[in-house]
C-alpha cells in the first residue's frame, strides 16, 4: 500500500540540507552518541528487529550480517566497515541522492555501524564519477570531525572512529562486494572466490562488513524509532522485510524520480501514483529493481495456491499489485534488487532493450570466468545480429543455451545477473522475438525512445 514517508528524505530540498547545522536541528548525531554507550549486543538486537533488508540488491538482513562478525574482536585483527556506494546497476540512482542531499545520515550510520561490528574505521566506496557525492561526504566527515563526533573520542566516548571516502575508477563489477574489497586494497577489481566471506577475511584480510549506502543511512532513523517500530512501518513486517526505503522509477513514465515510502508499495503505485503514469501509452514491461532483475509483464497473474508461499495472499492478482518485497519478488521469479524500476511502454522494441543491456554486461564482465566472459559476448553478438535482421531461429534458441550455461558456473553473481534477465526477456517475450527474427527486424519499432 502506498504510504509515503520522509524519514530518509526529510532534508531533501532543504537549503543547505547537507550541512551539520541542519542535520543537528533535526536531532542528528544523537543516535550515534546513544549507540556508543549501548551494550553492543543490544544495538545488534535492535538492528535485527528493524528488519532492514540490504538495499544493495541481495536483500540480506542487515542486523544478521552485523552479528556474523567474529566476537570479541582480536587486537591483531582490526574489523572494518565498508559502505558500498558504487551505484552502477543500470536503472539505479537512489544512493546518489542520499550522498548529495543527506551525507550526515551516512556518517552517523557509519559511526553506529562501526560500533555494532567492532570496527574503528569505515570506508565509503564511491564510484569515481559521482564528484558531488564525494565532495558532500568529505564535507560531512570534516564537519563531524571538527565537532568531535569522529576521531579518537567521538562525543567524548572512548571508542575511536574514522570515516573515509574511497573512489573507484569506472568498473560496474566493483559493486560486487569482494571485487570492491580488491579495489579498495588497490588491486584490479576482480571478484574473489567465497568462502572466505568478508566477515572472516574481507578488507586487508580482516573481518569486514559490507553494507550498501542506503542500508547504513537508514540506521540512525531505525535506532531513533526503535527497531520493532521501524520494521512495522512495512506491510511486509511478517516477512521480516521492514521499514521504509527509497524507490526509483525511470524510463517511460511521466515523472521519473526517487521517492520514499514504506516497504510494501506495489509496482502499480510506483508507476502510476508516484511516477505519474506511463508516458506515451500502455505498459509493455517493467524491470523492477535494476537491470539484473528479470522483467515483469503487466498481464502476469500471481499463481501461488500454496498457503506457505510468500505470495499466497496475492494469489490470482495481477503482478503489479504485489507489494515490492525481497521474498515476494523472489517468489515471482524476479528480484527486488535495488528497488529502482525501469518502465517500458508498448512502443519499445523489446529486442533493442535486451540488446542494450547485453551490450552493458558484455562490456562489464571482468573476464575471470569463461562462461561469463564468453557467454556475455555471445549473447550480445547474436542480439546484434538480430537487431540487424541477420539472426536465425536457431540462434534465438542458442541464446537460451548460452544463458543457461552461465548460471551456476561463475565466481560471482554477475553471471546470474546477466543470465537471469536474459532468460526473462526471452521467455516472456518469446512471440516478439520470434516475430522479429521471422520478419528480419521489421516487426519491431526499431526504437527505444518515444
Amino acid at each position, binding site marked *: 500500500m502506498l504510504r509515503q514517508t520522509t524519514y530518509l528524505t526529510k532534508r531533501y530540498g532543504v537549503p543547505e540540507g547537507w550541512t551539520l547545522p541542519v542535520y543537528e536541528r533535526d536531532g542528528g548525531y544523537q543516535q550515534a552518541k546513544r549507540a556508543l554507550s549501548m551494550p553492543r549486543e543490544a544495538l545488534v538486537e535492535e538492528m535485527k528487529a528493524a528488519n532492514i533488508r540490504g538495499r544493495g540488491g541481495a536483500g540480506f538482513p542487515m542486523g544478521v550480517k552485523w552479528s556474523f562478525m567474529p566476537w570479541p574482536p582480536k587486537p591483531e585483527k*582490526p574489523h572494518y566497515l565498508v559502505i558500498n556506494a558504487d*551505484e*552502477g*546497476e*543500470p*536503472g*539505479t*540512482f537512489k*544512493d*546518489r541522492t542520499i550522498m548529495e542531499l543527506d551525507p550526515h545520515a551516512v556518517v552517523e550510520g557509519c559511526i553506529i555501524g562501526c560500533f555494532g561490528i567492532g570496527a574503528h574505521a569505515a570506508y565509503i566506496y564511491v*564510484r*569515481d*564519477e*559521482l*564528484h*558531488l557525492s564525494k565532495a558532500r561526504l568529505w564535507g560531512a566527515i570534516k564537519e563531524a570531525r571538527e565537532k568531535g563526533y569522529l576521531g579518537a573520542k567521538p562525543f567524548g566516548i572512548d571508542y575511536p572512529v*574514522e570515516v*573515509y571516502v*574511497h*573512489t*573507484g*575508477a*569506472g*568498473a*560496474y563489477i566493483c559493486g560486487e562486494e569482494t571485487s570492491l574489497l580488491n*579495489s*579498495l*586494497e*588497490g*588491486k*584490479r*577489481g*576482480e571478484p574473489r572466490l567465497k568462502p572466505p566471506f568478508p566477515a572472516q577475511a574481507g578488507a*586487508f584480510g580482516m573481518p569486514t562488513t559490507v553494507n550498501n549506502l542506503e542500508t547504513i543511512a537508514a540506521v540512525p532513523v531505525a535506532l531513533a524509532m526503535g527497531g520493532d517500530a521501524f520494521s512495522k512501518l512495512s506491510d511486509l513486517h511478517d516477512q521480516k522485510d521492514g521499514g521504509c526505503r527509497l524507490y*526509483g*522509477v*525511470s*524510463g*517511460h513514465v511521466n515523472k*521519473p*524520480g*526517487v521517492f520514499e515510502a514504506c516497504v510494501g508499495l506495489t509496482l502499480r503505485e510506483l508507476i502510476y501514483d508516484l511516477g505519474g503514469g506511463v508516458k506515451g501509452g500502455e505498459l509493455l514491461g517493467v*524491470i523492477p529493481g535494476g*537491470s539484473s532483475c528479470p522483467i515483469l509483464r503487466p498481464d502476469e497473474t500471481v499463481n501461488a495456491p500454496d498457503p506457505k508461499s510468500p505470495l499466497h495472499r496475492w494469489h490470482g492478482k495481477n503482478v503489479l499489485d504485489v507489494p515490492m518485497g525481497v521474498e515476494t519478488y523472489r517468489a515471482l521469479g524476479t528480484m527486488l534488487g535495488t528497488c*529502482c524500476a*525501469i*518502465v*517500458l511502454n508498448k512502443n*519499445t522494441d523489446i529486442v533493442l*532493450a535486451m540488446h*542494450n*543491456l547485453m551490450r*552493458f554486461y558484455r*562490456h*562489464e564482465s571482468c573476464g575471470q570466468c569463461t562462461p561469463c566472459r564468453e557467454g556475455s559476448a555471445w549473447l550480445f553478438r547474436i542480439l546484434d545480429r538480430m537487431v540487424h535482421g541477420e539472426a536465425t531461429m536457431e540462434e534465438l534458441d542458442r541464446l537460451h543455451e548460452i544463458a543457461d550455461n552461465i548460471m551456476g558456473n561463475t565466481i560471482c553473481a554477475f553471471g546470474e545477473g546477466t543470465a537471469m534477465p536474459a532468460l526473462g526477456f526471452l521467455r516472456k517475450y518469446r512471440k516478439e522475438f520470434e516475430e522479429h527474427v521471422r520478419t528480419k527486424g521489421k516487426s519491431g519499432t526499431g526504437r*527505444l*525512445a*518515444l
Partner: protein
Amino acid sequence: MTKFALSPDREKHVEEILSRYPNRQAACIPVLHLCQEQNGWISDEVVEWVAARLGLSAAHVKGVVTFYTLFNKEPVGKHQVWVCRTLSCALRGADDILHHCEKRLGIHVGQTTKDGKVTLRTAECLASCGTAPMIQVDKDYYENLTTAEVDRILDRLIK
C-alpha cells in the same frame, strides 16, 4: 621524454591519502587519480612513478590501470564528454543525444576534436537515470537534456 613527478601540493595530498589506509597499496587508485588530474593520462612514466612512490611493482600498477575504464591509457582532449547510453537513458533519447554530439563536434565516439579540445565517449549508467537523458562533462553532470541544451554545453567547450 621528461620524467613524471607530482606537483608539490599534490604530493602533500599523497601523504594524507596514505594516512587513511593500513598499507600503501590501498592508495594506488586515489594516487593514480591525482596523477591523471595533473598529466591527463596514465603514461608509462606515471606508472613507474606511482610504483616507486608506493613500493609496488610497475606490473601491478599497470594491471590496475588497464582494469579500470576511467584511467586514460593514451592522451585525451582537454575536455571529456561522456554520453550515457544505458537503458534508462536510451528510453529517453540518449541515441539522439549521442548522434547530435557526433554531428556537432564532427567526430565519432572515441575520437578527439582536431584542436584537442574535446574527447567524445559513451558511458554506462551513471546513476542519473531519473533525470535522463544525461551527459557528463569532465566532473559535471548535465541532466534532463534536450539537443538545444547539448548545443549550449558543447559550444562553451569548443569556442
